[in-house]
C-alpha cells in the first residue's frame, strides 16, 4: 500500500505504476465542467487564476451539499473524458495529478507523459465512502456554480488507482 502526502511533486510520482493503489493525504482542488470552462477562459485572457496550478491535484467532482453535523457530502468522481479538452493545458501549467473516472483521450495521455504527471481514478459511485475521506472543505472560486464551484479539500487516506503513469502505461489497455 502506498501513502503519499499532497502536493504531489514530480519526484513523488515518477515511480508510480499504472494499477497502483495510492492513499492521498493533504490538500487538493475540485473542478468539473463549468469550472474548467471558466479556468480555461481566464488562462486564455492571461488573468490570475484562483489557485496555484504548480504541483496541484485536481479532483473532478461535484459533491452533494453538506448536511448539518457532517464534514462533507457525497463526493465520488465524475467522468474525466469531459475535461479532456482542458487537461493538456492544465498539465502544461503545472498540474501534476488529475483524479476522475474512466477512459481519456490519447492526447491527454501524451500530455501526462510529456509533463511527467499522472492521471488517477477513484471508485465511481462510492460517493459516501470517498466523501468521508474529506476532513475540511474551503471555497476557492466560482461559488455561484453551486456543486461545480472550486473547493480546496483537505483529505485523509483518499484512495486512488493510477490509470496513466509517467511511463505511458494505460490501466484500461493492459
Amino acid at each position, binding site marked *: 500500500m502506498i501513502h503519499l502526502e499532497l502536493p504531489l511533486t514530480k519526484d513523488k510520482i515518477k515511480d508510480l505504476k499504472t494499477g497502483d493503489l495510492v492513499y492521498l493525504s493533504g490538500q487538493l482542488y475540485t473542478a468539473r465542467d463549468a469550472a474548467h470552462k471558466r479556468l480555461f477562459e481566464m488562462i486564455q485572457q492571461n488573468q490570475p487564476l484562483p489557485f496555484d496550478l504548480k504541483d496541484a491535484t485536481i479532483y473532478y467532482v461535484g459533491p*452533494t451539499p*453538506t448536511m448539518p453535523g457532517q464534514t462533507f*457530502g457525497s463526493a465520488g468522481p465524475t467522468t474525466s*473524458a469531459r475535461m479532456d479538452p482542458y487537461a493538456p493545458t492544465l498539465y502544461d501549467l503545472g498540474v501534476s495529478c488529475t483524479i476522475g473516472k474512466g477512459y481519456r483521450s490519447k492526447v491527454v495521455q501524451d500530455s501526462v507523459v510529456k509533463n511527467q504527471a499522472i492521471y488517477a481514478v477513484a471508485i465511481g459511485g462510492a460517493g459516501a465512502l470517498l466523501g468521508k475521506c474529506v476532513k475540511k472543505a474551503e471555497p476557492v472560486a466560482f461559488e455561484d456554480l453551486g456543486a*461545480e464551484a472550486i473547493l480546496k479539500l483537505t483529505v485523509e487516506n483518499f484512495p486512488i488507482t493510477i490509470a496513466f503513469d509517467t511511463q505511458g502505461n494505460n490501466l484500461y489497455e493492459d
Partner: protein
Amino acid sequence: MKEISVTRIRDAVTKMVQDINVNYPKDIYQLLKAASENESSQLGKDTLQILLDNADIAANEHIPVCQDTGMAIVYVKVGQDVHLIDGDVTQAVNDGVAAGYEAGYLRKSVVDDPLYDRINTKNNTPAIVYTEIIPGDDVIVEVKAKGFGSENKSTLTMLTPADGEAGVIQTVLDTIRNAGPNACPPMVVGVGIGGSFDYAAVLAKKALFRDATIPNSNPKYAALEKKLLKLANETGIGPQGFGGDTTALAINVEYFPTHIAGLPVAVNISCHITRHAKEILS
C-alpha cells in the same frame, strides 16, 4: 368518482427521491452481494466490496450513495376512475422533487437551457414526467434518480428486420463496451426493442424501472436477457473497468410491436446503483 389530491403525489415524490439516494434498492444490493461472492478477479472482488461498504455507509450515516443524485424521472400512472384534485399534477411532481432534493441535501444537477446558458435551476427541476392512464382507481408513482455518467453512454439504433437477434446482441454489447469504466460498472442495462424511434427509448427506460432480479415474463425475452448478461460479463470490463467477470448485474429487456420495416433498439445504460422506487396511492 374517487378523488386523490395531487399533494399526495407531491409528498410521495419528496419522500422517494430522498430514500433512493441513501438506501440502495434491495434488488441491486442483492445482485451486487452475489457478484462480490462470485467475482474471480481479486481487484474486481475488492472493488465490489468497496461498493457494498459504500452502500452501508450511505444508509447508516445518511450520506447519498453517489454525489450524482441524478435527474428525477417520474412516472405517474393514473387510474381512469380517479379524479386528481388540488392543482396541476406535473407541478406537484416538480414541487415534490424540489422539496426532496432540498431537504435531503441532494445535489441539484439540472440546467435550464441544454445548449446555451446552462444555468443551474438550483432545485433539480424540472423532472422528466411521464403520465399514463391505467385501469382502476389507484395512482402509481414510480421514481428514478438517473445519473448521467451512465446516461451519456446510452444509444438508440434503427436496425433492420434482417439484423435479427444477432444484430440486437451486437448493438447491446457495442454499447456496453463503449460505456466501459465511464458508466460505473457493474452496470444495469435497460434494453427497449421495437415500437418507434422514440418509444424504443421509453421502453429501455421502463426496463430500468423493473426489479432487476425478475426476468421478462416472455420466456423468449427472458432467455435473451440471460444470453446478453452472460456475453456482457465475458467482455472482461469488470467492476469499474478494472477487469473481471462482473461487468453487468442485470440486463432487462422490454419489447413492443413495431413496423414491418423496422427493428428499433435502445440501450439505456445505468450504473451499479440504479435507484428506483414505487408507491401506490389508493
